[in-house]
Each structure stands twice: as structure tokens, then as C-alpha cells.
């Protein structure tokens, strides 16, 4: 199994397409960091315009922690598209090149082969997330320094102590790994139906875009289906950055406002991942491989 995963990883990283995602993430993060470094004050003034009319806010607000949060908000919506590039190509790519039949004559069961491919896709996904974390979190910490995290939400403000932030990022990236694995599983599932890569890649992207739009639309009729869409739960990482307050409105350090939301979202994502993989397995085991 280990050698099969190694072979699959070799195949992934042999393709130039793989590095598009790493390059795109680096470029996007670099451009945001550059913009905020040069003109971050204007951005902050704009964000704090409402609040600073009644409060004096003192301290290094634009620090690495806040910059990373801003970037994650922007990027974690789009990273699934980059993951689809590889995950949705895992089986269909082989079919397209005509190597799938050749692969299946090897003395491994279809289940083992599929599992190795899926593990390789997950490893790629995690590597992309680690890359994102290195550049967005550690890069921003280096460039902007660290301080308390001052988070402006739609209807309230959260102030997290510097010592109370890093573990939240570990949690957030861990959660993002779950969410991105679900995306990889979806791409993987769709790749079993096609004999060229473009179809499942575009299909995965379309499903994500479509579901994300439904998840974010505040139209009551869509509220009924929102809990069943995995994209609704993919933004659960933000919950790590909301703190609980006691009866006298005092933030409790080390707490999370809605931990049950994180647990529920994690379970939904894990269930989707397992569901997509089992479905892939069922389809693939019975599939007549002709290419």
C-alpha cells in the first residue's frame, strides 16, 4: 500500500499542473501581503471608520494574525478549485492516457488501488494547506509581527489576546484540512465517471461554486437545504476565532463561542468524505474499464 501511495504521489508531482496551485497560492498571498504592507493603514481606517467615531483603538491592529485571517477568508473559498485540478484528475487522468486498464492488471485489488490514489490526493491537499499556512500565517507573522487579534465581524468585534490566537490557527487549519479533504473526495468521486480530466475538474468546480452560492444566499427558501450542503459547513473554521463571554461581558480566554458548531460541521464533512469515497468505490468496482 505504502509503495502504491508513493507511486501515486510521484505521478502527482511529476505533472506541471500540480505546481499551478502552489504558485497561485504563493502569488495571491504575496500580492495581498504587499498591498497591506504598503497601504494597510488606509484599509484599516476604512474598516475602523464606524468604530473609531466612539472609541480610541490603540495598538498594532494590522499584525500577522489579522492579515492571515483576512487571507484565509479570501483564499479558503478558492483553494477548493485548485484541489479539484488534481483530485478530479486522479482516475479520469489515467483513463484519458489509457493507463487505467494497465494499472488494474497489477496484482492489487481495485479497492487498494483506489485507496492509494485517494490517500495520495489527500496528501497533496494537506501539502497545499501546509504551504498556505507557511506563507499566510508564518509569512505574515514575519512581515507584520504579532499582537492581539482584533477581529471585526458584521455585528460585533472580537479581541483575542496574542497568547490565545496561535492554537486557534492550528484548529482552523486542521478544520480546513477536513473541508478540503471533502472537496478532494468530491473531485475523486466525479473523476470515476469520465475518461478525460476536464469534465470532472469543471464539474467539481461547478458543484462547489453552485453550492457555495446557495450556502451564502440569505433567501429563506434556501435555508431549508443549507444544512445539507457541505459548503455550508466548510466555513466552520471561523468559529475558532469567536470567543465566549461571561455574564459580565468579559471574554473567557481559551474559549470558543460555539464549539458544537465546529463538531457538527466536522462530522458533516467527515460523513461527506466517507460518503463520496464509498460511492467512488462502489462505482469503480463495478465499472467496465475500457480505456
Amino acid at each position, binding site marked *: 500500500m505504502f509503495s502504491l501511495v508513493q507511486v501515486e504521489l510521484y505521478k502527482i508531482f511529476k505533472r506541471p499542473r500540480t505546481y499551478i496551485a502552489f504558485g497561485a497560492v504563493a502569488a495571491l498571498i504575496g500580492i495581498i501581503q504587499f498591498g497591506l504592507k504598503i497601504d494597510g493603514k488606509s484599509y484599516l481606517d476604512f474598516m475602523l471608520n464606524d468604530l473609531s467615531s466612539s*472609541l*480610541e483603538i490603540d495598538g498594532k491592529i494590522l499584525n500577522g494574525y489579522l492579515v492571515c485571517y483576512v487571507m484565509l477568508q479570501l483564499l479558503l473559498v478558492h483553494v477548493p478549485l485548485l484541489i479539484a485540478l488534481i483530485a478530479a484528475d486522479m482516475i479520469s487522468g489515467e483513463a484519458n492516457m489509457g493507463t487505467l486498464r494497465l494499472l488494474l492488471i497489477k496484482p492489487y485489488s481495485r479497492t487498494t488501488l483506489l485507496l492509494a490514489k485517494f490517500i495520495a490526493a489527500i496528501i497533496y491537499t494537506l501539502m497545499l494547506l501546509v504551504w498556505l499556512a507557511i506563507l499566510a500565517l508564518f509569512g505574515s507573522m514575519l512581515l507584520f509581527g504579532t499582537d492581539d487579534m482584533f477581529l471585526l465581524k458584521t455585528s460585533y468585534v472580537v479581541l483575542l489576546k496574542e497568547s490565545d490566537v496561535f492554537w486557534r490557527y492550528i484548529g482552523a487549519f486542521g478544520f480546513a484540512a477536513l473541508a478540503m479533504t471533502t472537496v478532494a473526495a468530491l473531485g475523486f468521486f466525479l473523476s470515476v465517471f469520465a475518461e478525460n480530466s476536464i469534465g470532472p475538474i469543471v464539474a467539481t468546480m461547478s458543484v462547489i461554486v453552485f453550492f457555495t452560492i446557495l450556502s*451564502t444566499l440569505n433567501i429563506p427558501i434556501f435555508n431549508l437545504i443549507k444544512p445539507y450542503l457541505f459548503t455550508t459547513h466548510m466555513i466552520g473554521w471561523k468559529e475558532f476565532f469567536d470567543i465566549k463571554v461571561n455574564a459580565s461581558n468579559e471574554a473567557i480566554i481559551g474559549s470558543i463561542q460555539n464549539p458544537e458548531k465546529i463538531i457538527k460541521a466536522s462530522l458533516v464533512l467527515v460523513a461527506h468524505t466517507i460518503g463520496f469515497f464509498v460511492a467512488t468505490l462502489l462505482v469503480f468496482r463495478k465499472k467496465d474499464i475500457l480505456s
Partner: protein
Amino acid sequence: MKKCRLFVLFIFCVSLAMAQDAAQLIKKVKAKLELVDNYEATGVMKTDIAFIKAPIGKIKIYFKKPNLFKIKKEGGISLLPKGGLSVNLSSLIASSNYSTIDAGVQEVGAKKLRVVKLLPNEEASDVVITTLYINEKESLIEKAITTTKENGTYTMLMNYGAYSNVGLPDKVVFEFNTKNYKLPKGITLEFEDDTKPLSAAQQLKNKKGRVEISYKNYIVNKGIPAAIFN
């Protein structure tokens, strides 16, 4: 008619005497506060604003005559009411360019306090009126309500302890008005935010803020570099 004139004269003399009493009381309070040229203190600040979730923070407080006042948080980001905390006790009565009005005695909690209103004589002053609730026996300001032109009305409640002999409080509760906070979802990128709109009562509650400062370890009249207030 003669009786009536005498009565008006009597009322005028009584109000003049009361105003003089109030001015004397303010002088006594001021004399006590003037014992402190500068101080440095450590403390704990609790911010209680409905739309802000913030932990308790350790702070350092600096004061230098006549009205330099600075609160610095020990690392991290601090939130203070705009222009508010600069209205500290000394700066409330630092100038003598105001008129005093005696507003009688009022019970605040278990204490009977003399109420004195200060009206600035200067047209340009940001302060419109200050109402002081003074403990006559100790010559200490226990409560102050200040209405300003730019920053609304502030209420300060003071508790005294070990440093009451120089008029320095152990605890100050600062109440002030805030504006309703709301950022568009397009800016916060929280399109998924499903919070319900606030009720009228909650919106009203959101307009009140409270900052509580507990002072510890005063260092009085040991000198403070002016650079700290920049």
C-alpha cells in the same frame, strides 16, 4: 410690598452663600487633588461594551499636572472611549474658569453627597456642564457626570481606599455612549452570517459602554517623563 422685597433679598443672599459654599468645597477638593503632581499606577481594565468581546487587560496609568493623562495597555490592543478617559478627576476641575452652582444634597447609595454643577465660562470649552457628587467630609468626588459637545455624556463613579488622602481612587467606573456597530457583510466577507437583527431594547443597550479600571500600586510624585504622553 416691603416684606416681598425682603424675601427676595433673603433668597438672593441664601443662594449667594450656597454658591460660595460650593466654591469653597470645590477649592477644598482641588487642594487635595493638587497634592499630586504626577502619578503612575498599574491596574486592570475591563471593557464592557455590548458589541465588543474583550478580555480583561493589565494597564499602566500615567498622570502629570495639569491634565496629561495616559492609559497604556501592557502589550496588545486597547479600546478606550474616545476623548473620555482624558476627563480625569484633576482635569475636571483643573481650570478655575467656571461658575459653580450648588444643587443641594443627594443620597447616592448609603452616602449623602453634595451636588455641585460646574459651568465653563469659556464658550469654546468642549465641556458643556459637569455635575459633581462630593463627599463633603472627605473632600472627595464620588461621582461625576460630564456632558461634552463632541463626545456625549460620561459618568464616572469613584471608589476610594488607601490613597483617599490625596484624592486618588482605587476604582473608577466610566460609563459613556457608543454608536451602534454594524459592518456590511461585503466588507467582513461573512455572507453566511445568520445573526438575527437586534431588538430595540438590545440596540439601546448597545449604545451604552462601560470601562472599569481598578488601580493598584500608585507611585505618587516620583516624576514621569513627558514623552510617555506623546
